[in-house]
């Protein structure tokens, strides 16, 4: 789960990581009232889970009530796209905070290093750009240090990291203190990523987190009820929203072939073979292990609600999943919803003969059974092309 900037900053504040004081607002009047309480100059920041907000016009400084009103009015309701065209994300909230007098901008992050199996702290005195840019421009400028799990990120280690990163000597103590507290936030909140970009040295000599990017491990939310109940960044896509409500793992893609597989690996592999056959997948939908008929009905509802879909492929290799359950789900779905486009089904593995028998008996219109994974991919690509042309 990714936190919004303000949620991350509030989490930082709870762990005594210095952040500018601020307030969140969902309408212009509340935003203006917040700005009045905070004082000027203040910054009005769009709360969406995407980078590049500043470039998109989602971050503005206000020096007066009029400007605060003007910026809040412009930013609330704005659609922001990410640097790689992600989104658009509509701005439902702004965060108003006191403007900081910036002496220097740095970069700090804590991540879980999957290879080393240890948390990794990274710090750079280069700021104002993202970590890829820093690494590309000057890899040596990104200081790194693994943290021994269970030992914590002690002052000595943190000061050494600040030294490696080339943080000015007089600011190293405060930077190290902030990093240690950030590490406390990381472990106590079950975070898998904390990024502070920029980490700022103010003219007054304070070191503060001017932005926050925090990812919390979904598997650990059971022990963080206060985080679990935070408002999520809105899911804008209607199919993704619907899938979420039904508890399905669904990712929207740009193509016209609806895909369902069982297991994330097989499902990804199905997308790949469809693309190799010249098709364009419309989605990733992992029905998971042991899917029952109801889940298949739900999945078909989600896939067919996407108007771009011209044909659908079900690629099932039953292990725990029983192919007769999948067949029952398809037959059940055909009585409840209008599928409307050709459906190619490949059933193999556990109870595949029973499943194929059920499908043969039901004799559904526009249902095409294929024996192999590659055969089913070519077939669905043909049918989708015919459908798109029609």
């Amino acid at each position, binding site marked *: 789960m990714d936190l919004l900037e303000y949620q991350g900053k509030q989490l930082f504040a709870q762990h005594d990581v210095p952040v500018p004081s601020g307030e969140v607002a969902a309408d212009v009047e509340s935003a203006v009232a917040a700005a009045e309480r905070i004082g000027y100059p203040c910054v009005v920041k769009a709360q969406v889970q995407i980078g590049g907000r500043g470039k998109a016009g989602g971050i503005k400084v206000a020096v007066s009530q009029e400007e605060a009103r003007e910026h809040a009015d412009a930013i609330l309701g704005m659609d922001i796209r990410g640097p790689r065209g992600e989104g658009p994300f509509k701005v439902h909230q702004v965060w108003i905070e006191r403007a900081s007098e910036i002496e220097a901008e740095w970069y700090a992050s804590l991540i879980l*290093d999957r290879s080393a199996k240890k948390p990794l702290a990274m710090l750079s005195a280069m700021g104002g750009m993202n970590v890829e840019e820093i690494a590309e421009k000057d890899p040596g400028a990104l200081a790194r240090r693994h943290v021994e*799990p269970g030992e914590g990120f002690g002052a000595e280690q943190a000061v050494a990291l600040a030294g490696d990163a080339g943080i000015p000597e007089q600011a190293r103590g405060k930077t190290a203190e902030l990093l240690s507290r950030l590490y406390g936030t990381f472990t106590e909140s079950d975070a898998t*990523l904390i990024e502070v970009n920029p980490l700022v040295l103010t003219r007054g000599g304070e070191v503060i987190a001017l932005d926050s990017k925090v990812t919390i491990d979904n*598997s650990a939310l059971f022990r963080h009820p206060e985080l679990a109940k935070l408002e999520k960044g809105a899911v804008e896509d209607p199919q993704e929203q619907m899938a979420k409500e039904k508890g399905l793992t669904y990712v929207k893609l740009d193509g016209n072939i609806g895909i369902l597989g*069982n297991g*994330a690996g097989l499902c990804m*592999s199905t*997308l790949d073979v469809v693309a190799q056959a010249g098709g364009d997948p419309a989605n990733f939908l992992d029905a998971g292990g042991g899917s029952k008929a109801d889940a298949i009905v739900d999945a078909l509802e989600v896939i067919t609600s996407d108007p771009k879909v011209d044909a659908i492929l079900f690629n099932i290799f039953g*292990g725990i999943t029983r192919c007769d359950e999948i067949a029952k789900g398809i037959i059940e779905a055909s009585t409840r919803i209008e599928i409307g486009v050709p459906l190619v089904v490949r059933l193999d593995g556990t109870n595949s003969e029973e499943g194929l028998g059920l499908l043969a008996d039901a004799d559904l219109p526009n249902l095409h059974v294929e024996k192999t994974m590659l055969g089913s991919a070519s077939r669905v690509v043909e049918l989708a092309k015919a459908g798109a042309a029609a």
Partner: protein
Amino acid sequence: MSIIVGEGTKLVVSGLTGREGSFHGLRNRDYGTDVVAGVTPKKGGQEVDGIPIYDTIAEARAERGANTSMIFVPARFAAAAMEEAIDAGIETVITITEGIPVHDMLRVYWKAREAGVRVIGPNCPGVLSPGKANVGIIPAQFFERGAIGVVSKSGTLTYQIGNELKQAGLGNSSIVGIGGDPIVGSDFIDVLELYERDEETELIVIVGEIGGDAEERAADYIAERVSKPVVAYIAGFTAPPGKQMGHAGAIISGSSGTAEAKKEALEAKGVSVGKSPTETAQLAAEAIGAKA
């Protein structure tokens, strides 16, 4: 021979009294695995279809000589169950449970390393050594005994490839599902090392997917330490960018974590990479045919 599980496996199942645990635990026994005990706190003294239940893994080990544990308990209790197995002196811990908090797994990982205990998983289908033992949820009917060692991040994809190998008349020494979680007890490298030493294994198939850099590290390891032929399959070429991993993660691995990067890394070290599960099985068949 085979690796990780085999004729010498004496299995204790944590969570054998649960619905899933009993279903798969008994299936494992029906396959021929020596399931010596189950463990559920406060249910010691009961039985599940003739298998004795103990309160603790330590008791199961002392009374029944268990050397391997399978963890099938709910996610929030699974890390504690793994630690219990490590403390009890179990040699191999195979964790099927998915959804274990990653910070818990960090702790368990290092505890296991220090104790010299092999951990497979979590969030994995387990390990099958055809004709000998099955620990986990791998459907054994799709695999025959043979000379190909499989190690995979993904369950169903492995069944798909196993089935294609079977149709080509080929079998497996072992099938190891290492799981796709960010922190897993054993990586490709750990399993490659075992297959390299295993006399029955003549060829190794690795099945990877996007994210992390385990495949890239495996490629380096293969070049340096593996003398047996290796064939690979990677899933996720069409996965949408930006959905698979955070920005900071990519920097560490020195790789984007994409399927393309993994394929290139493997091919650069002489590993043939199949475009589909079908082609991967064909490559394996050709490679082992050429060897025979």
